[in-house]
């Protein structure tokens, strides 16, 4: 069973103001998506970030105090909590809302890389369209959005990749098998960054590094996501039947602009989860994973080695090659995505060793480094020049008239898996083979009758008849498509749910 999705928190700014109110700007941006009035629908009862996959519940998160402080300030605003969150479920099954002052787009759950890319790109279009509408209201192109992970002053925001995992896989095995892989994944999936930062401790201009997020990783494991961020987040919020499933919630990744990098990031992680499920993961244990993720990030020449617990040293490329070797033995031929990922992963590692020029337009850090070094030569700049950080930021601008990556893409210099038709379809509907598609279908067909939604269920107004579509264990494509057919054909949600119950019980 493969199911994955990406949540992206966008950076937002107003260029016409000296001081920007991030709460209001993010809320207004999300609201600008709506043609009509905001109606509260998201049901937060399924969310509890205090549950820890290691088998306990923490009494508090490090961010709680800061959140409380912000809540006190925000209490004076003329908006309720729900108005500030402005949580929307879109007709394509995605969630779009204001999360901690960042507009966040969460793709619907996807089963294939192509669907995921189309929905990730659809997210870029949706947030930019909202910015265009907001700018129309403001009378100028004042609001700009960035698909990145840092403000270059020590404040980071996330791009989380999520995977459905069987709960039969012990969490300790998941940790030991994933850590070396995740520490080195940035070689493929890093978005690149000028300079160095530490959590809320400012910015040191300087050389280029592979990852936007590595500077902000402060722990191997942990349930926190805003402070003391862990390489492997232990939040136990499965958004599914918790007796059967976990949700692997990875917060260490960068927001990618390159489709190829997104596809590889998620594709290779999916393969490593397959390895773990089959018990054939490479036997590697890093001595200091937190130090290692920073060391590897800060060496774009990829020569740095990190120490293993058994005393050996190993490069990031060699770690990735160990995982590729295991995956090629175990996963070849399992499906089309697996075969594509194996081939491209190998090709990428090989090019990173030899000549990375062909990876421009495919990997973000390689592309960004090429752009910046070209500019530095033209303008005779050093890495310490503040212009470089500004160009780094602008690489991620999702405004097609300004973004550097999108400029490169417009010239046909980037690798694409999606077509404009794929993106248009992803803007309108969710994947036909996942519950994300069902969620979107409910929004399109029965919007007026929906009273509450969350990842695993949709609730309808409906008197005495069954009124909840439970999707906590609705993952088989055939079952999803059968349920979709009933929702399409029924005159009301109650009729659809009754027919669905009959089918399941039969």
């Amino acid at each position, binding site marked *: 069973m493969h199911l994955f999705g990406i949540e992206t928190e966008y950076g937002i700014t107003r260029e016409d103001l000296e001081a920007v109110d991030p709460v209001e700007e993010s809320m207004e941006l999300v609201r600008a998506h709506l043609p009509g009035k905001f109606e509260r629908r998201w049901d937060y009862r399924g969310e509890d970030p205090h549950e820890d996959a290691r088998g306990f519940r923490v009494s508090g998160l490090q961010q709680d105090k800061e959140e409380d402080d912000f809540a006190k300030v925000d209490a004076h605003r003329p908006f309720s909590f729900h108005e500030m969150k402005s949580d929307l479920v879109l007709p394509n099954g995605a969630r779009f809302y204001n999360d901690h002052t960042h507009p966040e787009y969460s793709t619907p759950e996807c089963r294939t890389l192509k669907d995921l890319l189309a929905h990730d790109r659809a997210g870029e279009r949706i947030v930019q369209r909202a910015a265009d509408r907001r700018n129309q209201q403001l009378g100028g192109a004042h609001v700009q959005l960035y698909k990145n992970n840092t403000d270059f002053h020590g404040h980071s*925001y996330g791009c989380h990749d999520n995977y459905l995992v069987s709960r039969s896989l012990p969490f300790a095995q998941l940790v030991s098998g994933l850590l070396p892989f995740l520490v080195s994944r940035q070689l493929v999936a890093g978005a690149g960054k000028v300079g160095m930062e530490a959590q809320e401790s400012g910015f040191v201009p300087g050389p280029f590094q592979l990852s936007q997020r590595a500077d902000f990783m402060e722990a191997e494991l942990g349930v926190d996501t805003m402070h003391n961020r862990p390489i492997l987040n232990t939040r136990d919020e499965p958004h599914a039947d918790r007796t059967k499933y976990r949700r692997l919630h990875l917060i260490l990744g960068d927001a990618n602009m390159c489709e190829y990098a997104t596809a590889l990031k998620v594709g290779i992680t999916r393969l490593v989860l397959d390895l773990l499920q089959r018990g054939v993961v490479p036997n590697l244990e890093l001595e200091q994973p937190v130090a290692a993720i920073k060391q590897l990030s800060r060496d774009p020449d990829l020569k740095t080695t990190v120490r293993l617990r058994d005393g050996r040293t190993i490069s990031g490329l060699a770690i990735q090659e160990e995982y590729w070797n295991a995956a090629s033995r175990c996963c070849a031929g399992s499906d089309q995505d697996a075969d594509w990922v194996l081939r491209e992963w190998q090709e990428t590692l090989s090019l990173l060793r030899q000549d990375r020029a062909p990876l421009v337009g495919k990997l973000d850090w390689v592309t960004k480094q090429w752009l910046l070094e070209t500019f530095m030569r033209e303008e005779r700049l050093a890495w310490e020049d503040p212009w470089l950080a500004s160009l780094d930021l602008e690489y991620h601008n999702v405004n097609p008239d300004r973004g550097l990556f999108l400029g490169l893409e417009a010239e046909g210099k980037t690798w694409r898996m999606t077509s404009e038709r794929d993106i248009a379809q992803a803007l309108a509907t969710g994947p036909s083979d996942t519950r994300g598609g069902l969620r979107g279908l409910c929004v399109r067909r029965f919007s007026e009758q929906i009273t509450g939604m969350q990842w695993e269920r949709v609730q309808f107004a409906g008197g005495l008849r069954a009124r909840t579509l439970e999707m906590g264990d609705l993952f088989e494509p055939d079952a999803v498509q059968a349920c979709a057919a009933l929702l399409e054909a029924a005159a009301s949600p109650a009729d659809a749910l009754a027919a669905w119950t009959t089918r399941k019980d039969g």
Partner: protein
Amino acid sequence: MRYMLMPERRETPGDPMPKPSGPSEEGGGPRRPETGSPDKDNLLKRMRKVDPKQAERYRQRTGQ
């Protein structure tokens, strides 16, 4: 890092085109970057328009 190699990219580009049986043969399908001369001038023009102090002014609250 060796982007002095970049001009050669026009002549000997890697093959970013997945072979048949990739995950996306239907619809648009993967498309390789154009191998013609990169329109560096346009991109450099866009880069020169970026305000050097933009990152200095850009402030966000910590997210997740």
